[in-house]
């Protein structure tokens, strides 16, 4: 069975939610402690949301130095699927695995609300099972989700089809309405919305499941 490692830093809080969503789709998942220098035998890695190291200094700034991140980089370099959700996206940009940065929302407010996303590419570890142009209802929950990067990087992201999902109605000022991007290898994906919060009809949406399904498929290919 495909196994997903879910990285836990002190201050991470969405780890159990991601594990619940992965298991509901038939995947296996286990927590990985940030202080470990190596990954257990896993086929994919998720860095979940929360406030790693209290978001002190700035989100992700301290987490990039946790021992596990060396192993995550190595795993990613070998083509292993790595997904950062919300705070995990911030960690991945700080680590340099993904381009750009997440600054404070344009309204200078924390926002926990529904968001409508559009799938911009299916050529990524997180969207392979979706369709281009498909709209997904997946909530956001962040203060620093305003994606920004240099004009050159933005052009490159578009040229290389690396914008993964965009907001239909931009809630936070993100450049190019970007909600998620991937690396050149297309195996590392970061996004601000929380697909695990849209994984059950009781929660109002199941649209996040197409992302976890994609991840499990990518993991299988990698394994």
């Amino acid at each position, binding site marked *: 069975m495909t196994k997903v490692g879910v990285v836990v830093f*002190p*201050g991470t809080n*969405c780890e159990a939610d991601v594990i619940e969503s992965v298991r509901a789709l038939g995947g296996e998942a286990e927590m990985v402690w940030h202080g470990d220098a190596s990954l257990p035998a896993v086929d994919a890695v998720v860095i979940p949301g929360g406030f790693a190291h209290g978001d002190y200094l700035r989100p992700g700034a301290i987490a990039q130095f946790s021992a596990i991140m060396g192993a995550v980089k190595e795993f990613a370099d070998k083509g292993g699927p790595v997904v950062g959700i919300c705070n995990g996206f911030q960690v991945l940009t700080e680590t340099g695995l993904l381009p750009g940065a997440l600054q404070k929302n344009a309204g200078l407010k*924390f926002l*926990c609300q529904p968001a409508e996303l559009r799938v911009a590419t299916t050529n990524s570890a997180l969207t392979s099972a979706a369709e281009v142009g498909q709209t997904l209802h997946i909530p956001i*929950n962040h203060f620093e989700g305003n994606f920004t990067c240099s004009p050159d990087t933005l052009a490159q992201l578009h040229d290389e089809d690396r914008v993964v999902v965009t907001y239909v109605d931009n809630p936070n000022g993100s450049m190019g309405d970007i909600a998620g991007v991937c690396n050149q290898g297309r195996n590392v994906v970061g996004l601000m919305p929380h697909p695990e*919060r849209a994984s059950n009809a009781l929660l*109002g949406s199941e649209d996040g499941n197409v992302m976890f399904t994609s991840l499990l498929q990518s993991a299988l290919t990698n394994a």
Partner: protein
Amino acid sequence: MNEPLHRALGLTDDEAESITKILGRAPNPLELSMYSVMWSEHCSYKSSRIHLKRLPTEGEHVLVGPGENAGVIDMGDGIAAAIRIESHNHPSAIEPYQGAATGAGGILRDIFTMGARPIALMDPLRFGPLEDPRSRWIAEGVVNGISGYGNSVGVPTVGGETVFDETYTGNPLVNVLCLGIMPTERLVLGQATGVGNLAVLLGSRTGRDGIGGVSVLASAGFSDDEADAAKRPNVQVGDPFEEKRLIEACLKLLDEGLAVGIQDLGGAGLCCATSETASRGGVGMDVDITTIPLREEGMEPFEIMTSESQERMLAIVEPGNLDRVMEICEKWEVLASVIGTVTDNAGALRILDGPGDDAIVLADVPASSLHDEAPLYERPLAEPADLADRRQRSANDLPAPESIADDLAAMLIDPSWVYSQYDHQLFLNTVAGPGSDATVLRLKDPATGADTGRGMGLTTDGNHRWCAVDPKRGTANTVAESVLNLACVGARPLALVNCLNFGNPEHPEVMWQLSEAIDGMTEACLAFDLPVVGGNVSLYNESKGTNIDPTPVVGVLGMVDDLQSPPPGKRWNDGDRIVLLGDPDATELSGSTWAFRQGHKQGSLPAIDYDAHAAVAGLTRDLVNDPGFITGVHDISSGGLGVCLAEMAIASGVGCTVARVGSHALLFSEAPSRVVVAVSADNLPTLEERAAAAGVPVTRLGLAHKDQFAVKGLVEVPLATLASASADRLPNALGGGTTQG
């Protein structure tokens, strides 16, 4: 002449004398300061205890009732729920961000102290009017504080209330409720047992913040702004990241059975935690004050013992388990220090200036005397002299409104500006979130994460207008509203916690309000078979000599027995029939939002018929738990039928045409036991049959359609006008941005 020390610490001359009698000698300054915090109104409930005894506290699901850190309810399947509500009114009045943040932090510790993982916070908030700049500053700071602390600590804020009214100018109410769940077998109590066991202090270093918070701040009213600003250092400062790690470390300790007892450090700090654990366990405790990690040098023993520095816990640990405890704390980067030992020294709490038997004894008091022998006051109470006269003056005698549309629009307020700043979805439990009549959370097994297929309903309710007019009926009707709110999401009530926010107990009229409110709550709880499992009393809510309107707030936990789909919520579809369940002729306006807006605060509150109420609630619950049968449901409360209909219309984006509501009194009365239901034309006859069978009056009010909000003969206004009045109110007043955090 200098004031005697005991008075400066807030103790009366009689109380100082009692302390001398208990000790058989005059207390030293450290001992005096310990008694002053423990015997404060906030810690000892000395004015309210005598009345609180009347509340019913027993029920078949109650595992732990009042008196512990939290009430605990048996939810079945080996799952227990811990619930508590607290106030942080005074700290929030002078330091809104930290006051609200540490209010959340404090109540989380009360929950995980019991062994439960906190899974939800609710915040009933009350501020002065939006027109008042200071009230806006307080409101914005409080919301930021809850957002900043709650989101970061990783516990979702799933509901609450936001009320603006002139009665709270200068004295806002910041109440916070927390719900946790645990495997029933993990339930622990805050007690020390086993002579030779170690007292281990976990978490933050102890600093000079929050010294005297319970006595200086919480147990006195506000008078002038400058003096109150000088109390700002009495407010604690919170660190949600520390708390998050503390939660994980403590739950791990409890999972592995490494603590025989555990207690949070809240009001009155170490003094309270050490004496409470020793007192509950019937043992003594020696505390070596030199072992307590401090934030700064030169702290006096009385500062160390009464500091309210946040994010600290006291665990009682067997010596053989200490190494494992230290290992867990190290993993979670939580500071842990052995600061004391459980003794068989006749229940004495001794504060020592060093280790060993020859250490200087700084304080030596019977631990239990700090709690059990706290003074108990039967303060004089008196109903207002003109009460009979006031009750004669009904709000129905006021002139009819010039514009019902304007009056209606003025009562609409969309709270999403507040709750969109709170993470309300973490843990994937939130089926109906903030903005609903009541919150619905999935009930998952805390040990395995497996869904039980059942849900928990949770609501907080308070109504200062009803209680100002009649504290007894007002409180009873508040409890009834909670029951109906739960029914609107398909939940049956299980247990209640209360937060009693009142003015200065030294005013006989305030004590009368408190006593009446407790009588009303007792009456309603008995009628609904609803045990009170915990509570908090907040007195001295006064500003510049004026007491707040009495504001008892209740939190009620309920059970959804079969959670198949989200409850329908306050909405309708185009073409639906709009139906009223309950009395179609209720017109009493006294105590209503509409009456208060005209400055009318008198008259007689509509009484409740408990049988009729139970019938409406029961029918509503059945309809909601029949997925697809009705389109929407909403109870009638603040703002009456008019606001109820407008909220349903706004949420749906579909207008309505309503008949049979012939007067503004019918439109704005807040009489209890009424619900509006939206149903398809096809299901209407069955609905009427079901209502008749349940003995509930059912009245066809009209049709959901078009884009106008129309009540024949009274009002016709574009729905968009009402929608923007509601949606724009808070963003316009409070702006789009944060000022802190």
